[in-house]
């Protein structure tokens, strides 16, 4: 829903690094976004394409790695992945404890870029 807002931030960060490194053309931007985020890959790319027209980022591809939602049980310390919040129970599949913490799945960062 707010992909445009997020895309602007991505573009600004990428442009800043492109300028710093004397880049002529950015080819790919590698991102890491957690599974809990509702951002749609397709819309991120569409807005990015639009915003980057006429800059060194024009035509660059956003390669998004989705970091899975991994929980750790506070009782037995085992970790487990949740693929679907809607289908799976959030309680620990090993000992059924409800005391669990979210370990990964909230990531929201730019890793690097491939550029000329």
């Amino acid at each position: 829903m707010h992909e445009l807002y997020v895309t602007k931030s991505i573009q600004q960060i990428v442009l800043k690094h492109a300028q710093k490194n004397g880049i002529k053309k950015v080819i790919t931007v590698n991102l890491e976004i957690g599974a809990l985020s509702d951002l749609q890959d397709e819309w991120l790319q569409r807005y990015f394409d639009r915003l980057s027209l006429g800059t060194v980022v024009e035509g660059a591809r956003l390669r998004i790695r989705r970091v899975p939602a991994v929980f750790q049980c506070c009782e037995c310390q085992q970790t487990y992945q949740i693929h679907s919040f809607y289908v799976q129970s959030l309680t620990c599949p090993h000992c059924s404890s409800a005391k669990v913490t979210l370990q990964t799945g909230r990531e929201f960062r730019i890793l690097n870029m491939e550029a000329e």
Partner: protein
Amino acid sequence: MQEIQLIEIKEEILAEIKGLADQIRENLSEKKVFMLNIMGSPGAGKTSLILKTIQHLTDHLRIAVVEADIDSMVDSQKVAALGIPVVQIQTGGFCHVDASMVEKALDTLPLDNLDLVLLENVGNLVCPAETDTGSHLNITLLSVPEGDDKPLKYPLIFTISDVLVVSKLDYLDLDDFDLERVKTRATAMNQNIKIFPLSCKTMVGIKDWIVCLEQEISIFRNP
């Protein structure tokens, strides 16, 4: 042919706006003004909770309200009727409030003469979850008619909230909403979340919420 190079970036997206949010929080803390970010779906009862909170605290706290809506003044008029300073942010189509909008709104308030700012975010369970407003406490409202599956459908907002208010408790008998299920689901997302089931209509649970807020403000003032 130009050689392709890999350039390390390792930066958080929206870091700049996060920096501004931290700055707002710091400025407010210096002035001993506590700010509450109130999130939830349209119709979850955010404005009703704000009005009830004002009624309970207005005797001993100087309160102001920041109302954010895509485009209207309805909520701010209700607050102004209580004689409370209120500033309306019209986000103009934006689905959430960000720190730069909050900064402008706070500039118009008499911060030196305030103890508490209640910020009503845009009605939405998705976008406000990804943006830090500079508040000291994040609360999310989930009303009984919305259903107990919301922590599963919109997990992120429950991970960033300090408090979950389950509102419109008076609808509980008319609905198959399972309060225990919500508690389990929200706590799995966030072990530290405090949960307050209440109704602004019957007043059930309001007192517990007010006591919690007073405690948070007291800890904030005397750390």
